[in-house]
């Protein structure tokens, strides 16, 4: 069982990346968590480059998603929506649409922002995008508002309510992935 974490924030001390690390600590011992670090290297989507030999960073992202049983995304909110680089990366992964690596893949979305609302609009937009791509989107939400008050200086989550919400999302995501594994093996 492998869960891939993708943070929509590229910032080194990103609250969203910290949120993914906190989520990883809530996963069972048999769950391998990989924090994917390649988003920054993904070039702008260009259909001319979307060939059998796509840019290396794109191939790496597709391979990382394909190799995971589930994907957990944490997104900040830029101007009321998804950060461009995260959307761009997902646009690459979504091709070809009928057979892309996210199709039927269990995914969940969480988010943190410095403001009061915890990136709820970005999360809603991201869920819509993921469903359109064909992913199995877990409905649970974790909206971490005032993120600077929820993590300590080492980036550790210090809010138990948030941890409880995060546990629900992580458990739901992992359960959806486990439900799918026998089918994958039988196929």
């Amino acid at each position, binding site marked *: 069982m492998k869960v891939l974490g993708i943070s929509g924030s590229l910032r080194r001390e990103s609250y969203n990346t910290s949120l993914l690390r906190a989520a990883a600590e809530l996963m069972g011992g048999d769950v391998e968590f990989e924090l994917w670090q390649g988003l920054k290297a993904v070039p702008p989507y260009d259909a001319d480059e979307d060939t059998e030999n796509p840019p290396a960073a794109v191939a790496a992202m597709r391979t990382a998603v394909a190799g995971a049983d589930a994907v957990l995304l944490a997104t900040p909110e830029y101007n009321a929506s998804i950060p461009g680089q995260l959307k761009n990366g997902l646009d690459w992964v979504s091709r070809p649409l009928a057979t892309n690596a996210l199709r039927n893949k269990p995914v969940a979305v969480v988010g943190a922002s410095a403001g009061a609302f915890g990136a709820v609009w970005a999360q809603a937009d991201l869920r819509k995008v993921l469903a359109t791509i*064909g992913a199995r989107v877990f409905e649970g939400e974790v909206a971490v508002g005032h993120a600077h008050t929820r993590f300590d200086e080492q980036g550790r989550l210090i809010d138990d309510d948030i941890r409880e919400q995060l546990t629900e999302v992580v458990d739901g995501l992992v359960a959806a992935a486990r*439900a799918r594994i026998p089918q994958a093996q039988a196929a």
Partner: protein
Amino acid sequence: MSTTEILTVAPAGTWQLDPIHSTVGFEVEYIVGTLRGQFREVEAKLVVGESGASLEGVAKVASVDVKDENLAAHLQSPDFFDAERHPELRFTAEQIDLDGDTIIAPGELTMKGVTKPDTVSGTILHPTTDYAGNERIGLRVSTKVDRTEFGINWNAPLPTGKQALADEVTINGDLYFVKAA
């Protein structure tokens, strides 16, 4: 309905679907027209006994056939039928009414794992013998369902504020049956 009437309309026995000549499809209003699709893989069985008749049918979601592979993939995704978790659409009616030219089949329809009472109705194409000597009977049936009652909720708002895809879907079947030997 009396036994005699059933035997008149459809002779007793088990009638298997001829999947090659049968069609199970759907129609739904989309923006300014009607979107149609069909399921290429279907199975059905009509059983006529001395005291009544039953109808049962299955369509494989993964065989959904529309004019674009990306649309087909979207229809199979969790946004719509969710083929991975719910690979079949199913209709069962344990006691159907065959009367004259009409069939009324009160039964249960299962889509996306949700089972609801549903009545399929339509016309009977009376038994005849084909050129190979097989007895055949046809049923041309349909039903209208609210897809949202089955958890198929996808939609997209139009600039006018209306939704792109109607909730009401017509499911129709042109079912050719061949009497089992």
